[in-house]
């Protein structure tokens, strides 16, 4: 408590003196107000800055250039009710000499078994080991900052690693897309791209979700 101005107390004896006026001010309300304002500004200031995720889209290739086929690809197909399907490699509408008809399997957004995170951990293991080894070297001061960053970038751009394709149908939400990109970022995936869904892929998803 702040000092409270105390008026002249009872004096001994009957002598009457002019009351000594205290110059002390009760500061409690002012302090209350100051802290109230302080709390308000602290809270609003901290939470006002939104975070963001940087994303680069590929420039469309010149029309005369033949589109290079993705050799080692994993395709994620997002659909309604937060459902996510995937298949690996090229899409095949039917059995042919190179392989069998594409089947899609389901994943979920959880961190547990059968979840996207576990799946990516497994698929991306080689690259992660490399990146983590680099990180260990960097932590032991065997690498300088710029070299480390360049080497991580190179490791992520590894030709042998998977390229992830994200495709959505017309029911998938923005949150699903962000979640998938988030998981890819979490797992230090270097190559991913948003692509338009193809009709046969959409049919496969529809078969699974049971809608038209």
């Amino acid at each position, binding site marked *: *408590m*702040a*000092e*409270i101005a*105390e008026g002249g107390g009872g004096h001994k004896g009957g002598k009457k003196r002019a009351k000594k006026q205290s110059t002390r001010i009760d*500061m409690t309300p*002012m*302090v209350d107000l*100051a*802290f109230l*304002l*302080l709390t308000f*500004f*602290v809270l*609003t*200031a901290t939470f*006002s*800055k*939104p*975070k*963001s*995720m*940087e*994303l*680069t*889209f*590929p*420039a*469309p290739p010149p029309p005369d250039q033949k589109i290079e086929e993705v050799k080692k690809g994993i395709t994620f197909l*997002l659909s309604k009710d937060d459902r996510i399907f995937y298949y690996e490699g090229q899409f095949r509408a039917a059995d042919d000499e190179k392989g069998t008809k594409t089947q899609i399997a389901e994943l979920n957004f959880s961190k547990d078994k059968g979840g996207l995170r576990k799946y990516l951990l497994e698929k991306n293991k080689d690259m*992660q080991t490399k*990146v*983590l080894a680099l*990180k260990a070297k960097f932590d032991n001061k065997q690498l300088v900052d710029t070299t480390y960053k360049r080497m*991580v970038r190179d490791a992520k751009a590894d030709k042998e690693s998977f390229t992830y394709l994200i495709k*959505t149908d*017309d*029911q*998938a*939400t*923005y*949150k*699903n*897309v*962000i*979640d998938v*990109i*988030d998981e890819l*970022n*979490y*797992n*230090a995936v270097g190559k991913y791209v948003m692509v338009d869904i193809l009709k046969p892929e959409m049919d496969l998803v529809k078969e699974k979700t049971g809608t038209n």
Partner: protein
Amino acid sequence: MSKKPSKGGAPALDMTPMVDLAFLLVTFFMLTASFRMAEPVVVDPPSSIGKVDLPDNHILVTVDQDGRAFFGISNSSAKMSALRLMSAKYKVPFTEEQIIKFSGLPSFGVDIKDLPAYIDAKEEARTNFKGQRGVPLDTIIPNNQLKDWIAIGGGEAVKMYQAAKEKAAEAGGEFKAEKPRYAIKSAATTKYIFVKDIIKQFTDLKIYQFNLITSLEGGGTIIEPEK
């Protein structure tokens, strides 16, 4: 003389340093805080582990749940010159007052024909403005105002940035401002196809880098785990 034992009653505590500190902090936060006006729509973005702050200098397109697009530029002088150019292009006249008032507004989601009325409307009335159907981006009947806003607004913001940079170079001072970035904000529950439409407007203009606005979610990555 020996100290007298304190009398009963309120114990005294000198609060002056505490008050000084409290007011110092209040002053600091008041001066650094930037107030924003209420956005025309409340959009609840999804969370991500992305840690990049939204750049201060940005061109923002907000997509709400119904796929309506809202457009905003953070740089108010770029906003004013963009409105002048748009006004000339679409032959919708604006008064000087309206242009100044417009520069203080956050993002908007109306057809340019309704924009004068929207600017003149009271702040409370703006949220329920009846023409608020989003900035048109129709391509069947060519009326793609959003694309023009992005092209013109983005162009002006870049021009302002260049001008400021040259000025700083002449004066020999250090140049700190950042290049304008394009940002997209959308509700978590928005269908992705709506966002895709917006992204298409950008990629058509050969803009391929965006910042997708998300709310912060805890957690690190494989390389840099959470501490």
